Every structure is written in structure tokens, then in C-alpha cells.
């Protein structure tokens, strides 16, 4: 299986926070917004949409293959799962935040003294992560690196006037 990653098309982000909400809810016991609200849960997000100048910028864990967060983890709490997704074992996490210091993307959060991060344990029956599913404009895409880069190449070619391609999809 060729692994898919969550990519961001910054020009499409509307800053609506749908991805953050979907991410947080997918990690609740209820797994839905109203259930979580009625159950008094406090869902936590693992994706962050920030304002960077004029740009609304979603930041999601890149699931690095040579992950700094995993490399620096003293206790081995932060580890690479078999599917290549980097996750944290909460029982081993001591909240030293070396992972947060090492992550170049700011993708590690704090949850009750323990590291909290994207674990992709939110995929639906089609294998699509909740944040990607929730994005109403397609700013978040779940593709293989090859697919994403092909789209990039075609868009770049279109932008310099090469005909026959009608935009990324």
C-alpha cells in the first residue's frame, strides 16, 4: 500500500475551523458533536489553524518518516506505529515536551500534562481522516506524495501557460 498524507492547499483555506472541530470530535467517546456536548466532554484538537499575515494556515502533523519527535523522546512514549504514523503512548509520556521542542511544525499539543498529537485514528470507512473529510473547500487533501506533487506540477505548468490541464484535483 502506498501511504497517503494530509496535505494543505493554503490558497483554499477559509479559516472556518471545521477541521479542528472534526478532529477534536473524532477523538471523543461519543464521536459526534452533540454527543460530546451533551456528555460534557472537552474534546481536544490535533490540527491548528492560525492566522499568518493575510493567510489562514492549517498546521497538521507531517508524520515525518525520520521524526524528530520520536528521535528525541526520552521514554519511548513517542514512537512510530507499524503503519508509519507517529503516535504517543500516554502511559509512558512524562510531559517533558522534548517532542514539542523538536517538532518543526508546532504539531504537538498539550493534553492534561501529556503530549497529544495527530494519530490518524479518526479515519472513516473510506480511510479518510476526519479533518480532510470536514474541510468544505478541499484545502486539506489526503493523497500520496506522488499524487500531490503531480497536481503541483500540472498547476505550475498551467500557470506558465501550458494548455490542456484544468487545475488540480
Amino acid at each position, binding site marked *: 500500500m502506498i501511504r497517503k498524507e494530509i496535505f494543505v492547499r493554503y490558497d483554499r483555506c477559509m479559516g472556518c475551523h471545521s477541521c479542528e472541530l472534526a478532529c477534536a470530535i473524532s477523538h471523543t467517546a461519543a464521536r459526534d458533536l452533540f454527543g460530546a456536548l451533551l456528555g460534557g466532554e472537552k474534546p481536544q484538537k490535533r490540527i491548528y489553524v492560525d492566522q499568518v499575515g493575510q493567510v489562514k494556515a492549517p498546521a497538521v502533523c507531517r508524520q515525518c518518516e525520520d521524526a524528530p519527535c520520536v528521535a528525541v523522546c526520552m521514554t519511548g512514549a513517542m514512537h512510530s506505529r507499524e503503519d508509519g504514523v507517529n503516535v504517543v503512548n500516554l502511559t509512558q509520556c512524562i510531559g517533558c515536551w522534548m517532542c514539542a521542542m523538536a517538532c518543526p511544525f508546532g504539531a504537538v499539543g498539550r493534553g492534561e500534562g501529556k503530549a497529544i498529537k495527530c494519530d490518524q485514528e479518526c479515519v472513516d470507512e473510506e480511510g479518510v481522516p476526519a479533518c480532510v473529510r470536514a474541510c468544505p*473547500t478541499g484545502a486539506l487533501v489526503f493523497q500520496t506524495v506522488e499524487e500531490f506533487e503531480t497536481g503541483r506540477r500540472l498547476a505550475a505548468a498551467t500557470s506558465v501557460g501550458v494548455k490542456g490541464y484544468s487545475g488540480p484535483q
Partner: protein
Amino acid sequence: MAKSCNVSLDPAVCEMAEKARRLEVETVWDRYQAMLPQCGFGETGLCCRHCLQGPCRIDPFGGEPKTGICGATADVMVARGLDRAIAAGSAAHSGHARHLAHTLKLAAKGKARDYTIKDKAKLRSVAGRLGIPTEGKSIAEIALDLAEAALADFHEKETPVMWAATTVTKKRAKLFAEKGLLPKGIDYEVSDIMHRTLYGVDADPVNLLLGGLRCGVADLAGCYMGTDLADILFGTPQPVVTEANMGVLKADAVNVAVHGHNPVLSEVIVAVAKEMEGEAKAAGASGINVVGICCTGNEVMMRHGIPACTHSVSQEMALVTGALDAVVIDYQCIMPSLATVAECMGTKLITTMEITKIPGAIHIEFSEETAGENARQIIRLAIESFSRRRGKPVDIPPYKTKVVAGFSVEAIVAALSKLNAEDPLKPLLDQIASGNIRGVCLFAGCNNVKVPQDQNFTAVARRLLKENVLVLATGCGAGALMRHGFLDPANVGELCGEGLKAVLTAIGEANGLGGPLPAVLHVGSCVDNSRAVAVAVAVADRLGVDTDQLPVVASAPEAVSEKAVSIGTYAVALGLPTHVGVMLPVLGGPLVTKVLTDKVRELTGGYFIVDLDPDSAAQKLLAAIDERRAALGLSVPGGGRR
């Protein structure tokens, strides 16, 4: 050297923002940062929550979904949203006017002893304009008839809304009637918008916008009525010299701020504060210092010279000084966060209206019948609060500017009549014709947290004044300009172009002021944008043209409130090019955007200029002025026709 910061151009606000940060008092700027990024669907108007199948959001990039669940397109969604903003603004202005109508009625019946008819001449002239017979009737009888006529204007009746039909040029009234833009009743139009924007009613974006435009005309009626009735009850403003900014607070006095929009209460507070000086002195204060915030401040500044403490987005900062003993609020533009800041700073926050209550504030229910007692109770609370504060250090930023305010239409005409008693408008027209006055711009609206406070106002005003554009200002726009010295006649030389300088000096000297009028004429609170309309209509009538032909423009460079949207709408309905310096939530609807910024011109002659950059906005306003000058056959600077 004065403090500078990135949230405001006003050094007093900068000092207080820094103090708030030090004390960890949360402010509007903190909350704005926490809100970022703001949802782009809302920003572009593409989020609809009008029915329970929603919220619906449409992709602004042309992808799916292209419609809401009901099938409403982006343009329908955007037009409905805009219409509801116009309706809300109209409801607020007319709610204020209705409040005054009820006060006038009670005063006429002798049931509210704290109120009298202060301007009998205006009562007669307004009655005359509306066709209410005055011959052989007492003042109370006329006032009662006028109050009834005002209240009748809210509902559907045989005649259209009189405060719209009789306040615009005859040509405009005819145009409104022909195009279906003459409101049937003020409340009727607000209600009509709520009806047509309901689930499954009006789905034609252009028809929706026409409805919005008509509601905008109803808003003009509400504003105009508010101004008329306030002048009748409390007196028509005349030029007055006073001061603005937080330096007007006095550490050793009982400082009471009146905040909100309505003069019905604040008038009585100002009067009672004078009577209660003795009680304040007995408590160890040097006296009672009433100051204004926002448009209630503008109302009492225009009529009594009460100094303005601050306006709009910086309202919390007035409390951060620690010097305010009480903030008395009526309604509109009051941030609920004041309750928290008041608690932090030991200020008493006092709400007074049934429709405006804030948890954490003290509520003293105000009524016209008991106004005096209510006001005394409020001032007593302030004195009590002073007693607790007495001797404790406060931080009053040492900044204040001189302000000459009070330019009602009557005051402007009186000043002009010193140049030509027979035909007061003639000198103004002559100066416009000669190009000494290139055009007129009305600055209105609020301060928006998205813009460093006052930046857009001062940048656009500076540019226009240099180009000899006569500037009128209302509301927090006037507040912005007064904080930076634009209302101090001493700065005319530095601010204005040669032609405008000569005109302001000639009028000032003819009126025995020994110098010019201020560069910017403060015509009142935001309801008083009607005064600017009255000036434009008088000039148009005198020239025998309509308002859409005049070199007159409007600008709300830092707008916030839905009231600013409805004011902008009536400015466009009257035919004015109207600048907005922050993004209206309509960009998601290409047709609606096109209609508002261009096509509506074919209908009313007016249009919106949305430009976030103050320099290019000023350029566009000048171009609009020149285009109209050229069409009237008047000279255009540089001689070139566009």
C-alpha cells in the same frame, strides 16, 4: 514623546492598552487575536443560519456546494445576510427615534416633568414640513400631534413614511416612489426584510437588494426623526468649545461617563449632576465631571459642551484609567466586556434600559416619568464609588485636544447667513463653484478592531482636506478626528488646502470667532447623519438638482455596526458614492458585489466603494467628486476631465 502602539494612533489608548496588559485585563484587541483566523465563510457572507436545516456554507471558489440545502445561491445567501444587517441597523436607529417620540408625547401631556420643549421654532418647522397644522395651537398641542405623527410613521398607513418623503429632494421622493423605494412604514420595512429573508421566500438577489435599499430609506427616516425630536426636546446644537480624550478625566472629581446613544437619559444626568455638586463636595470631591463615551457623548457634547472621554473600540480603555467612578449606559455599541473591566477597576457599571442588561452591572430601570429620581440615584452611586476610590492613584493619560463642535444644520446656516443674510447657502455654493470647496465628504461610522484605531479616518481626512474637500463628521468618526486635533480651529492652517482654509477663515471671522471654523465640522451622533443629508438636500434644492449630482461623498473607513451598514445604504439610496474601509460580508456573491459597487448607480446614482487602503480610497473619493463637478460643468483641479 507620546506613546505609540499597534492598536491605536491615540497615545492615550496606547498607554491604557499597555496598562491593561500589565494588569492582565483582557481587552477587545486580545479577544480579536484569540478569534483569528476568522471564518472565511462568514467573512464573505457565505454562511446561512436562517433555517434549521443549516448552517449552510457555499464554496467561494466555485466548487461544490454551489447552493445551500434549500437551493439558495451564493448571491441569494449574501443578499439575505446584507438585508438583515440593514434591518437591524434600521431597527436600532428607529428604536431610538421611537423612544424620543414617546418622550415627546409624555412631555406634551405633562407626564414627564423633567422634559420640556426646548426648541419651539424647530417644533414648528418640523410640524410645518410634515403638514401638521400649527395655527392657533399651543406648543403642547403641536408637540402631541408631532409625536403622534412620528409614531404613525412606524406603521403602514395611507401616506408613506413622512420622515422619508419630506426630507429628501422632490426629485428623489418621486424617484423613490416610482422605483418602489419609498417606505410604507419604518417597522413595516424591518418586518418586511425579516419576512422576505425567511426560509423559502425571496430568492432573487436583485429583488432582495431592492428591499434592502427601501429599508435603508426607512433607516434615514428613523435617523432624521431621532435628530428632529432630540433637537425639539433638548435644543438644537450651536457651536460649543470643549475638549476630547482621556485627559478630560479629573482625579479629584466624581467622574461619570455617559455611554451609548440616547440623550433621553443623559440630558437629565447632565442637569442633575450640576444640582448635585454639593453632595459630591461633601464627599471630598472637587465636583462632578460628566464625560461622554460614543454617541451619547456626542449628543451631550453637541448640546452642552460635555467633553468626550473616548469612543468606540477604545471604550474599555476609559475604565482602565481607574478614574471613572461610574459608567452609565443606555443602548447600542456597548461592549459586554465593560462589566469585567469595571469589576477589575472598581468602576460602577450602570445599565438603565429594559433592553440592555449586562451580568455584573447594576441595573437602574429608567423611565421618563421618574427621570430626575433615576438620575439622582445614579449620581449618588457614582459619589459613593468616588468615596471608595478617593486618595488611590489613578492613571489619567495626559492627552486632550481642543474641540469646537455643535454644527447642526441650523448652526451652519446661521454661520453662513453672516456672509449673506438673504441667501445663506449662496456663499457655500459660490465657493463650491469656484473650486475653493472641491466637494463635501461626510465621515461616519465606528472604529474597527481590524484597523489600528483612527488610522483610516485620519489618513482619508488628511488627504481630502488638503484637496479642499469640506469635511463633516458624525459619531465615532467625529470622535476619531477630534482626538487628533481635526476639530481644533488652530490646526486649519496645517490641515487644509488653501481654498478651504480661506473659506473656513472667512466664515469664522464673519461670525466673530477671530479665526477659522475647525477643519472638520462635527454634525452630531450617528443618528445625526440625517443632518448631513439635510445639508445636501438644501444645497441640491437651492441648485435645482438632485442629491446624486452633487460633489458630495460619504466614507465609513472603520465601520463596525449594522447601523453603519444601514446608514451606508441610505447614503447610496440618496445617490452618494459611499466608501467603506473594511470588508462587507458580500464578496462571496459576485452579482451582489457588482450591484452594490456599480449597477445600483443606474437606479439611485449612488454606489459603494469598498477599499481597505485609505490612500487609494481617498483617491477614489476625489475622483468621484471630480466626476460630479465635471458633470455640473464646474472646474476640476488640473483642468482635466475624466
